[in-house]
């Protein structure tokens, strides 16, 4: 069972649909009591960093999420904005991130090349940087659907598990122990996304 955190930001229906398709049971919730019982946590998210953090704090979810991730060490996956929330801060806002993986979120900046668009939107390839249970079995031709204007930069290379190139490489998936983040949308990435979510469900 994967517990999907509903804090009012993001496309919960699609994530749930894909997990259903690969035969994984889900529960969508914003209740602290239910999150305390979670075996695995998925933190989705679309929108702005501060708006998301505000909602998490309004619902008093910060401490339970950190507790589950750090003390109980349940498998924890942040998707898209949900991955950026795992970092300590974002140039998109001023509020403090969940700070679960040593990394920060910064804006894409391309001064000289009009062919590089922001947001980085569309299908792009991923390259394995460090082996991980989340990306086990990925091939060179694996591609995912991205939509984001900010990118994550890990402090240490060891926490970067996938890299993607958009005007230079950035960390497209990150990990620290049981805590994972994916910048792309697995739920919108066909069999590639199903593979990643299947891997996550088996951790």
């Amino acid at each position, binding site marked *: 069972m994967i517990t999907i955190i509903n804090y009012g930001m993001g*496309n919960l*229906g*699609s994530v749930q*649909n*894909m997990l259903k*398709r690969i035969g994984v049971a889900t529960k969508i919730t914003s209740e602290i009591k239910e999150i305390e019982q979670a075996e695995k946590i998925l933190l989705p998210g*679309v*929108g*702005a960093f501060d708006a998301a953090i505000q909602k998490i704090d309004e619902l008093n979810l910060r401490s339970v999420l950190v507790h589950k991730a750090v003390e109980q060490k349940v498998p924890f996956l942040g998707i898209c904005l949900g991955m950026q929330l795992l970092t300590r801060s974002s140039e998109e806002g001023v509020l403090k991130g969940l700070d679960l993986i040593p990394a920060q979120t910064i804006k894409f900046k391309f001064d000289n090349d*009009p062919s590089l*668009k922001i*947001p*980085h*939107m*569309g*299908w*792009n*390839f991923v390259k394995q940087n460090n082996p991980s249970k989340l990306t086990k079995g990925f091939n060179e031709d694996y*591609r995912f*659907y991205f*939509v984001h*204007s900010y990118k994550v930069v890990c402090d240490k290379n060891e926490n970067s598990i996938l890299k993607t*190139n*958009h005007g230079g490489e950035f960390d497209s998936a990150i990990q620290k122990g049981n805590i994972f983040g994916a910048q792309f*949308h697995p*739920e*919108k*990435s*066909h*069999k590639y*996304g*199903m593979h990643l979510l299947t891997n996550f469900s088996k951790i």
Partner: protein
Amino acid sequence: MLLTRYIPCLLLKGAGLVKTIKFKNPKYVGDPINTVRIFNEKEVDELIFLDIEATPQGREPNYKLLSEIADECFMPLAYGGGIKTLEQAKKIFQIGIEKVVINSAAHNNLKLIGDIATIYGTQAVIGVIDVKKSLFGKQEVVSNSANTKHKFTPEAWAKELVKAGVGEIMVTSVDMEGTWEGIDVALIKRITDTVNVPVIAHGGAGNAEHLKNAVRSGGASAVAMGSMVVYQKKDFGVLINFPDKKVLEKI
């Protein structure tokens, strides 16, 4: 490197899919749910659904049908047709559709785009520029299924849309739509030279060469296809299909 997107653009009429020629003579081509399943198998990049009756009939989107479509769709999905308010856009996003396509509503209330983009981000809003030649051969911006003409140029409207907050622009040539005769590359180039957001070229794609022209010469970030993904060939029967990956990679 970001890949060019090739996007089936599917037209809804009632609960069925249709294909038009120059925005006219809609012909039934199949069931939307089955079609989505086929496009899932073919791993297409993205899908756009446009309800061609919603605005002319003055009604809201068919949320029930869209919800059934979204449930089957393991790729990014955009919807346009009849969205006039932020509330309606919200319902579309809640269904699990990530982009709304805004055309006629922008002409009546440009602020709607900013209202949606502020909450859901600019990437969630595709602005549409439908372009049609007048009797004198001048390319005019049209809306409301090409029934309403507007005075400004496509470039001027593109700038307005970007200023209002769209993250992408789909440029449709009404004159080429459904003809299989190729995309109006000059028109696409005019828009890609004017704005910096991704441009989806639409109307007239009939073969891989057409797609290539739109991307290489027109500067399009994506190409939307109608006839060529729902018919076997020009003047042939219905066949939901998608160009081979190897063919697209060569573009």
